[in-house]
């Protein structure tokens, strides 16, 4: 038994090292809760709620964000990690060793629990040092029991999802598709839930996340007497955990049987694949359409791309008004805050899609040599690049729809009358950013440098360009710099478009002209400098000896 426990210890250490070495895991399970906790505590001013005890707002924010870290670590990443290990054959290899199955799963659960705990400790630690959070000795045990119970329950659910999902992509879609929307109705991003319709709030109560947030909140609530145990919430969490464990056990057995059956089966070919597609040179239209579909599919399959260019902007549209004056807040220019944010976030999403994701995608393809292969096919360069740009436009349109929909559903902001003008600005901006992304790829050969340059430009510029915050006066030199680049012209265009209640809105030819100008410059750079081969391919082609 003690040998098995030592084995479990080693397995946990190994799985923890795997998690630590995966940037997206660290960003979303640790960095994201910490960053948002710090940001929102700063945003809402961290008021003192009770002069006598010195309790501040952050006292109630910290457990919510810690909960987010825990669910990300123990549900999402455990599920996705297990599904990936299965797809890559890691689980199969482990099954061929004497490693007991419970140690294999236990190692993953233990590592996920450690990660959730690390996230919690960081949030609370930062809270204690910078935002005067009080950590109460009498409720420490309750906090710990809550965290462990929830970790076990979410782990069981995560394993069930991994067993249910046929591929890691499905696992990713299932876990994040559940957690991120649930976070909104589970008192994580909406504090107190006052702006939330009651049916949404009730949905939250049906799932364990809201119970975790509240149980942990109770454990850190200095106004409640006693040991801090929220038995009701804990019972719901435990119930979900047991259901998850039963489902996981059943699904794992079932999936082993189907896997055995499936390996012998031969897939049936779709009818379209059984005969040649065409018997003439493809039209320009067909070529571009194929490329657009391919680009959009590629973006949708990259979790990071979808998260940062679609989900993140929508999330901020929901989040920022909730923390700064509510959905009814009106800016100096007369625009409702959610409407304003829906526009600027759509622009931000378009910028991430075109300038970062498209550029990164093509730089990666070039680095791996996939682009060299494409170069050997009859696909013309213009069709490839047009497909990328239009693909970025398609994804940007999804983002803009999501942003205004979120503003309408969560904050009750009406759809702007000038929606044709807004769509026009988004399309123009998406073309401009994608063209600029391709220009960066044309000028810079290595994939790592491309992503560094595109993010290094976009993030600081976003703060100068009224994306996240409006009305901040920067030093004159910075202001001047911000007006050189297209991002601020794009946000200004979309804001002004929404101001007038006509179909064309308040479009400003000056701002639009700057977007067109940058697009033309970018296209010239691409035409002049675009290369199919990157530095790696060059090096490989140099003969030796």
């Amino acid at each position, binding site marked *: 038994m003690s040998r098995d426990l030592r084995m479990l210890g080693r397995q946990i250490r190994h799985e923890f090292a795997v998690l630590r070495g995966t940037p997206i895991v660290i960003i979303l399970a640790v960095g994201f809760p910490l960053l948002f906790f710090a940001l929102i505590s700063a945003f809402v001013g961290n008021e003192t709620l009770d002069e006598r005890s010195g309790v501040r707002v952050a006292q109630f924010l910290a457990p919510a964000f810690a909960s987010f870290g825990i669910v990300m670590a123990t549900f999402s990443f455990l599920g996705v990690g297990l599904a990936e290990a299965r797809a890559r054959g890691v689980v199969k290899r482990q099954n061929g060793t004497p490693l007991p199955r419970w140690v294999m799963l236990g190692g993953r659960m233990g590592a996920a629990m450690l990660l959730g705990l690390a996230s919690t400790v960081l949030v609370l630690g930062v809270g204690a040092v910078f935002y005067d959070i009080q950590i109460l000795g009498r409720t420490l045990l309750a906090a710990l029991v809550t965290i462990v119970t929830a970790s076990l329950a979410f782990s069981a659910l995560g394993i069930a999802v991994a067993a249910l999902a046929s591929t890691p992509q499905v696992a990713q879609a299932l876990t994040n598709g559940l957690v991120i929307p649930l976070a909104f109705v589970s008192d994580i991003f909406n504090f107190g839930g006052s702006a939330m319709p009651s049916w949404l709030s009730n949905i939250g109560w049906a799932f364990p996340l809201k119970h975790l947030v509240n149980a942990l909140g109770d454990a850190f609530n200095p106004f409640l007497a006693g040991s801090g145990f929220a038995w009701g919430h804990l019972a719901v969490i435990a119930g979900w955990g047991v259901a998850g464990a039963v489902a996981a056990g059943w699904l794992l057995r079932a999936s082993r049987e189907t896997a055995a059956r499936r390996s012998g089966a031969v*897939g049936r070919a779709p009818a379209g694949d059984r005969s040649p597609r065409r018997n003439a040179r493809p039209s320009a239209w067909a070529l571009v359409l194929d490329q657009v579909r391919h680009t959009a599919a590629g973006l949708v399959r990259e979790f990071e791309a979808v998260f940062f260019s679609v989900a993140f902007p929508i999330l901020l549209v929901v989040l920022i008004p909730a923390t700064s004056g509510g959905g009814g807040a009106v800016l100096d220019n007369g625009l409702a805050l959610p409407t304003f944010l829906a526009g600027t976030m759509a622009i931000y999403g378009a910028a991430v899609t075109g300038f970062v994701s498209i550029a990164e995608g093509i730089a990666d393809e070039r680095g791996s040599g996939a682009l060299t292969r494409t170069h*050997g096919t009859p696909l013309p360069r213009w069709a490839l690049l047009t497909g990328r740009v239009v693909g970025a436009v398609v994804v940007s349109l999804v983002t803009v729809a999501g942003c205004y929909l979120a503003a309408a559903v969560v904050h009750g902001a009406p759809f702007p009358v000038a929606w044709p003008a807004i769509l026009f600005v988004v399309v123009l901006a998406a073309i401009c950013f994608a063209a600029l992304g391709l220009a960066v790829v044309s000028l810079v050969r290595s994939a790592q440098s491309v992503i560094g340059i595109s993010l290094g430009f976009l993030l600081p510029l976003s703060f100068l360009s009224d994306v996240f915050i409006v009305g901040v006066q920067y030093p004159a030199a910075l202001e001047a710099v911000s007006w050189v680049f297209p991002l601020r012209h794009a946000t200004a265009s979309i804001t002004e478009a929404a101001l007038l209640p006509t179909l064309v809105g308040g479009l400003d030819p000056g701002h639009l002209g700057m977007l067109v100008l940058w697009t033309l410059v970018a296209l010239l750079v691409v035409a002049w400098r675009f290369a199919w081969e990157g530095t790696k391919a060059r090096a490989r*082609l140099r003969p030796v*000896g």
Partner: protein
Amino acid sequence: MSAVVVQGLRKTYGEVVAVDGLDLVIEPHEVVSLLGPNGAGKTTTVEVLEGYRRPDAGSVSVLGTDPMVGGRAYRERIGVVLQEAGFEESFTPRELIRLHAGYYPHPRAVQEVIDLVDLGEKADARVRTLSGGQRRRLDLALGIVGDPQMLFLDEPTTGFDPSARRRAWELIDRLRDLGTTILLTTHYLDEAQHLADRVVVIDHGTVIASGTPEALAASAGASTVISFRVPEGVTTADLPEVGTDLRVAGTTVEVRTPDATRDIHLLTGWAVGRSLSLDGLTLTRPSLEDVYLDLVGEPSPTDETAADAP
């Protein structure tokens, strides 16, 4: 008209001369294998023919077209399997084959290609789950989906297990039967011997020998090898004078001879006369490998270190 005509091709990278006055003619429906050591200029030659590299000097014509100016119309008629190229990992083989099929005017059916390269089992799995050999088969699939008249294969079976290699050979044989002209580079002499109608050996950027595998072997003339074990109580000095080059390894003797008939007669007559038996007596025709090693020379250890340096 010949499928490929290369005259005086020269290509340098800075100081390094990769291809130095290379001539090559390939007839339609011919399968030609470029053979040569690392750095001999194989890949550079193929990449010039594919249109990836501009030659510094010489003339190149493939299917009657200059690859550098042939553009899209030229690439509609060729298929390219590069030595090393990645994939977009989040797609499935079927999706990528379908996408590539969309580039060509007369593509093969997607399912036909999947079956040809034997990827049926993995056709709908993400590329990132494919093994090395499966990736190489996907490479092949993308190279042939456009039903090319001329197919370039740069080391097509590197990394294949023996049975996968056999299957790839069958595929290439089938493509040849369908009339595709194929130029392949390879390190494997058995592969060249099996697949190629003609082998072109190049070294230091020029052709040093060319012909059918059999003709090449025959041209090496002197190297038919007689081998046998020296009978007990006999030293090599007692043997009759046979061949041009006699080597002893342990008790085994290897004799290279230009006139095997006469030398075998001498040897067996000598042995029978003394009531000796020549155990393990064999007569070996020169293999392509012998010819190849004769032609390019076995690299000395110092050469190898130099070749490994960047």
